[in-house]
C-alpha cells in the first residue's frame, strides 16, 4: 500500500510543510509518493529529491538569505502609503495591467529554484513526485512529472497576474491553485492508496478597499470550496493555522516550519491509528 503526501499551496506559508514533514519522518511514517501545488510543489520536490529535512532547511535558509523572493503585490500595496505614492502606484498598475501579462518577472523565482534543484529532473527524485499546474488555454489541471524540476515547479508556482504564465508546448501554465490547490485527486490518480493532505489555513482580508480586494475575496471563497472537496477525498488531513502569515513574505520561514511541526505532531497518534487500520 502506497502512502502519498499531498502538499497544498499558500506562498510563504508553505514552509510549514517542511515542519510537518519533519514530524512525519520523526514518527517513522514512510512516504512513498508526493505531489504539490505552488509552494507545495517546491517543498514536495525538495523532499522527493533529498529525502532529508535538514538538507531542505539548509537550502531554504540559503535561498532566503541570497535571493529576493518576496513578491510585491502591487494590487494590494497600491492602497498603502502616502497618497501621492498610492496615486503613482495606481497609475503604474493600470498601465501594467493593460499592457503586460504580469507585474513581475520570473527572474528571482528561477534563481531561487536553481539553488534548490540545480539541473535535477523529475526522473532523479528518490520517490515519485509531481507538480500541479493549470493550463489556461485548455482550462484544466496538468500533472507535471517529466523534465527539469525547475521548469515544472516554476509553472506550478506562477501566480496568475503576479508572474507570467509558463509556455510548455501548446499549454500555457499558471499556478495549480486555480483548480487544485490541494491536489488530492491527482495524487490518487498516480497510485497513492492512503493520502495525507496538508492544508495551510489563511485568513482572508474581509475589509475591502476597492473592487480588486472584492475580486480577491471571491477568488478566495472559490478556492476554499474547491479545497474542501479535495480534502474530503484524502484519508488523513493536517490543517496548519497560518492565518497570521503574509503569503508574499518569505523571511519568517523558521516560525512557519515550527507551526507545521507542532500541527503535525499533535495529530501523529491519530494518523498512526488510521494507518494501522488501513494496513499500512
Amino acid at each position, binding site marked *: 500500500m502506497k502512502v502519498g503526501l499531498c502538499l497544498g499551496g499558500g506562498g510563504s506559508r508553505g514552509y510549514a510543510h517542511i515542519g510537518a514533514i519533519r514530524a512525519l519522518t520523526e514518527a517513522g511514517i514512510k512516504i512513498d509518493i508526493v505531489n504539490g501545488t505552488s509552494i507545495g510543489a517546491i517543498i514536495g520536490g525538495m523532499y522527493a529529491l533529498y529525502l532529508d529535512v535538514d538538507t531542505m532547511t539548509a537550502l531554504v535558509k540559503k535561498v532566503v538569505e541570497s535571493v529576493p523572493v518576496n513578491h510585491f503585490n502591487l494590487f494590494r500595496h*497600491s*492602497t498603502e502609503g502616502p497618497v501621492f505614492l498610492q496615486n503613482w502606484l*495606481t497609475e503604474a*498598475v*493600470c*498601465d*501594467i*495591467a*493593460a*499592457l*503586460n*501579462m*504580469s*507585474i513581475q518577472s520570473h527572474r528571482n523565482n528561477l534563481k531561487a529554484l536553481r539553488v534548490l534543484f540545480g539541473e535535477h529532473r523529475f526522473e532523479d527524485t528518490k520517490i515519485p513526485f509531481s507538480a500541479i499546474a*493549470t493550463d*489556461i*488555454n*485548455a*482550462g484544466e489541471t496538468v500533472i507535471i512529472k517529466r523534465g527539469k524540476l525547475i521548469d515544472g515547479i516554476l509553472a506550478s508556482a506562477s501566480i*496568475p*497576474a503576479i508572474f507570467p*504564465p509558463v509556455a510548455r508546448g501548446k499549454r*500555457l501554465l*499558471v499556478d495549480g491553485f*486555480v*483548480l487544485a490547490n490541494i491536489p488530492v485527486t491527482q495524487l490518487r490518480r498516480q497510485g497513492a492508496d492512503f493520502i495525507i493532505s496538508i492544508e495551510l489555513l489563511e485568513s*482572508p482580508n*474581509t475589509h*475591502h478597499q*476597492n*473592487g*480588486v480586494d*472584492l*475580486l480577491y*475575496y*471571491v*477568488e478566495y*471563497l*472559490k*478556492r476554499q*470550496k*474547491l479545497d474542501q*472537496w479535495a480534502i474530503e477525498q484524502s484519508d488523513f488531513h493536517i490543517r496548519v493555522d497560518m492565518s497570521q502569515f503574509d503569503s508574499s513574505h518569505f523571511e519568517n520561514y523558521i516560525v512557519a516550519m515550527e507551526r507545521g511541526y507542532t500541527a503535525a505532531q499533535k495529530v501523529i497518534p491519530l494518523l498512526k491509528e488510521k494507518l494501522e487500520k488501513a494496513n499500512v
Partner: protein
Amino acid sequence: MSEPITLVLGGTGIKGIASIGVLQSLHSHGIKIKKIIAAGISAPISAQFALEKGPDTLIYAFTRFFEENYGSLWGLEQLSGLLQSPRGRVGDSFSYFLRERTYCQANFQNESVLSWQKLEPQINQIFGDNTFSDLKIPLAVSVIDLKQGKNILVQEGKLYDCMKASMAFPGILPPVSVGEMELVSSTIYCDLPLDNITRNDAPVLTVDLPMPFVGSNPRTLLEIISIVDDISSRAIKEKLLANTDYLFRLEGMEKFRWGDYHQIPNIVEQALIETDRLLKTLTLP
C-alpha cells in the same frame, strides 16, 4: 408531470434575461413550480414572474441601463466581447488598452466601474415596497454575504434590496448593505445558484446558459485574471450540478455575450425555443 419542481435560474450579465423565455415556456406547458432559486438578473425576472407581472418593464429597464452606461462598460465588455473578437489591428489594440485601463482604474480607486445612481430609481419603480411575502411563488435569491464569507439564500425582506444585491457583480456595481449583511451577486462564484439546494427542493430543474470558454492565448493581465476566474467558476458549477435532478443546457446561447443588450429579444426567443424543445425530450415527474 404532476409533481411541482424547484427551478434553478442563473446566468451571467444580460444573458440571465433568457430566464424570461424559460419561464414563459414552462408556464405554457403547465409545469408547476414550487420554488425558484435565482441568481443575477434571473432574480428580478423571477420576482416579476412570481408577482404575476409581465417582463416588459424589466426588459425596458435593463436595455436603458446598458444603453446609458455603455460608455462606462467598456471594461465589462472587454471581459467577454473582445476576447472573442479578432485581434491584430492597431486601432483595436489602442482601444483595447484604453478599455482595460478604464476598468482597472475604476476598480483601484473605487469599488466598481458603475455606481447605483442610475439603476436604483428603475429598480425602485419596478419593485417599490414589495416584499418576498407578496410573491405567488416562493423565491430564494442567491447572493454572497461578504461579512459571513459565504453564499446565502435571501428569502425575506424587501425585494428592492435583494434585487440590487443579486445584480451587484463585483467590479461592475458596488456591494449592497442590507442590515448586518454586505451582499454581492453570486454569479461571479458560480453562474448557477446550486450551492444551497436541499433535499426538500427535489425534484430540481436547473437551466444552464452555456458561455464559451475564452481562455486561449491571453495578452494582458486582466485577461488572465478573467480566464482564471472563469476556469474556477466552471469547476465549481460542474461539481454542484450533481445536486440537480434535471438539467436543461440551452443550446445556441454561447453566441450571446454577457454585455450584449442589443440581443435581448433574440436571447429571450432562443431560450423559449430551447426550453420548449428540451421539455419534449424529458419526462419530468
